[in-house]
């Protein structure tokens, strides 16, 4: 532990024996990473096709969309809230991107930014409902989850919107700026770095963690908690929008029927990464690892020809294990 102060000459006993917070945060990520390595090693041995680069690329591509959503969800969960609308919200953003690019024929950049803006708007609505109407996050975002699903179907006329005529749209996710690595994965990693900086260095991130640690104390300290919650949900919405664009580009279409269930995968990724659902404790690195674990697990089980039904069972068990080890660990230092 590094000491930056000069007062170490006067330590109460209780303080000396306790371990620093950095050690603990690192441990949480090390554990998650170790889990990822174990799963990876297991499938490498169990299946000869697993380590194939094409397969690894598939895992990374699958990680990208859920992962981007999970990045945004991390902020909401850091406040002790939850966002159930990210799955169908992502679909709504994909559909809106389709409307802008295919139906209205707007320039590529405008369409992409429009899709992301749609996500921000959805997040803003969630934030306002939670903050100013006082609706519990679970209910507020359950409602917008349904609204987003319905709107996707209404706007698209329940039919997929194809981007075949939009030059370059498919390149957003599947082009390879870095040879061999799909852009979707690159976007995910860049988004993760941005999210990481936002969470640990910006006011939004700090206030999100403060609110999650102790909302009342944060309010008494003079922070406009309601306003900052709106910002947090809006940030999550931006990531949802980005996920929608990447998803649409990958499929080269906006599929209005998709989306439901993605929110649970995103939340699972966040939780596996060691972020506490009670709020106050969150890391982006954890979320990235969590998203990788989810995708690796699904991919590996599929490659081993485990039926889809059983894949779900396995994923559920992994979530339980991940959260339980977190509880065990925290029980010790409490």
């Amino acid at each position, binding site marked *: 532990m*590094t000491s930056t102060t000069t007062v*170490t000459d006067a330590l*109460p006993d*209780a303080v000396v024996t306790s371990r620093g917070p950095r050690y603990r945060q690192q441990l949480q990520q090390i554990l998650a990473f170790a889990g990822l390595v174990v799963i990876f090693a297991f499938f490498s041995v169990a299946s000869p096709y697993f380590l194939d680069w094409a397969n690894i690329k598939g895992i990374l591509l699958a990680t990208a969309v859920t992962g981007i959503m999970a990045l945004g969800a991390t902020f909401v969960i850091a406040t002790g809230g939850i966002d159930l609308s990210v799955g169908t919200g992502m679909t709504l953003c994909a559909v809106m991107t389709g409307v802008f690019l295919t139906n209205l024929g707007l320039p590529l950049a405008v369409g992409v930014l429009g899709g992301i803006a749609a996500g921000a708007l959805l997040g803003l609505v969630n934030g306002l409902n939670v903050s100013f109407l006082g609706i519990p996050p679970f209910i507020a975002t359950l409602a917008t989850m349904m609204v987003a699903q319905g709107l996707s179907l209404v706007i698209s006329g329940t039919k997929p919107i194809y981007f075949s005529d939009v030059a370059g749209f498919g390149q957003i996710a599947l082009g390879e700026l870095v040879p061999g690595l799909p852009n979707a994965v690159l976007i995910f990693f860049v988004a993760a770095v941005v999210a990481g900086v936002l969470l640990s260095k910006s006011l939004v991130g700090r206030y999100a963690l403060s609110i999650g*640690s*102790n909302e009342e*104390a944060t309010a008494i300290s*003079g922070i406009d908690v309601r306003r900052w919650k709106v910002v947090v949900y809006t940030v999550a919405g931006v990531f949802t929008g980005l996920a929608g664009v990447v998803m649409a580009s990958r499929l080269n279409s906006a599929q209005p029927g998709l989306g439901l269930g993605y929110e649970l995968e995103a939340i699972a990724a966040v939780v596996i990464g060691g972020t506490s659902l009670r709020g106050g404790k969150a890391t982006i690195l954890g979320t990235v690892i969590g998203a990788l674990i989810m995708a690796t697990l699904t991919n590996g089980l599929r490659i081993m020809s485990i039926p889809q039904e059983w894949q779900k069972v396995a994923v559920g068990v992994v979530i339980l294990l991940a959260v339980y080890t977190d509880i065990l660990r925290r029980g010790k230092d409490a």
Partner: protein
Amino acid sequence: MSTDPTPAVRAGDPPTAGTLLRVEGITKSFPGVRALDDVRLDLRRGEVLALVGENGAGKSTLMKLLSGIHQPDAGTMELDGAALDVRSPREANERGISIIHQEFHLMPDLSVAQNIFAGREPRRLGLIDDRALARRATGLFERLGIPLDPRQPVSQLSVAGQQMVEIAKALSFDAKVLIMDEPTAALNDAEVRTLFRLVRQFLTPRTGVIYISHRMEEIKEISDRITVLRDGRYIDTLDTPGTAVADVIARMVGREIRTDVRPAPAPAGRPVVLSVRGLSTRRLLKDVSFDLHEGEILGFAGLMGAGRTEVARALVGADRSTGRVEVRGRAVHVRNPADAVRHGIGYLSEDRKRYGLLLDQDVTANVMLSSLGRESRAGFVRDGDARRVATDMVRRLAIKTPSVRQRTKNLSGGNQQKVVLAKWLVRDCDVLVVDEPTRGIDVGAKEEIYDLLRTLADQGKAIVMISSELPEVLRLSERIVVMCEGRVTGVLDNADASPHNVMELATRFGGAEHLLATTGDAR
């Protein structure tokens, strides 16, 4: 379970002979505080024993020992001559000790009957028998003469009605000892009469009542004897008839107060920093007015529930209030704590773990919390600067921590309090509202906090200090505002203040005289 209402007075049972409950040599410590030190008490059969003492005298702790919430470190407790060693409130109930707490423990959405018989509902075929439940409750109410509808949800009852439910619940156990903690705090005169009638009805040669209250007139009326605690010690037990209220108060505050350390009289002509007029809240505060000067520590004294914390919360916008607040002569409208902080008012809550600290975060995060916005650049926090500021504060306030990266959870109470104080100093607040600044802090650290507050005032900060510890108020504040039942009952200059006149003002209950007049025929 038997709820036999009328235990017959058996022949040969002397009406009030013998001890029902005996407590001897009880000692109980909490981290940093010795709450009870060699305390004794005996409750005789058929009597009402009043238990009095200032806030922090140890009454509540003693009750928690009797009700099994805590266990004593040393000493013995006996009920009916048998050792009383209860480990939980349920065990205490089973042994015949029922407690009515100051705060209600009711489930608002359940019915009156469900609340009273929670955990021991009559069952038929494994399911709750609602009809038997209602019948049992009705029987209980008829016996007690309480006009309550067993099927009504508790949330629809008035405060007094809820109090009645608590009492009925306590009496539904076959209680030998009934302990009431400030039972009349929320009741009007008529309801107090009903309560007293219930108490007398409960008394038999095999039962007794311990009655905790600050209201001397009620104690005079209902009790047979009065036991006084002070600073966690047993002081005296007096027979109520023939004892003057002044004698009781003298024993309550009789501790030696260090009169040698008193603040110097305030120099005249200091500017008013905070001016409050007619501050009122819907629930408690009535027309609270005061001025706070630059460099002044203004003490707020009063008993539990007098409304001091409510004043603080109203000032910082944590609760809704009406009235006029001026900061340096300019009227301000404080709707929430963010407004208060903008106007330079910072609040140290009496409950620092709930309202003061981010326990899971480090010293830096806590010290900087209020100032992050101001110290950031383009929405990004400058961690190097933040750590420097925090380190500087750690040094200035002598906060004992191995590093500014230490989580505040691991600091001692005194150092946690300093961290909260540091937060407001970094934010440059001119007005500090400190609520019970030394609660749960050990003696040495208390002195440090006192020195710190004094130094801050000398540097020009204006401080509102709420404290239940009279010596603390007398030692630090130039002037003392005394409150009772949400009103200001007096403002004293330190030189004129004594424990006695503060206590008198603190017990100036509105209804007291009226109550005295109506008690003549009641007994």
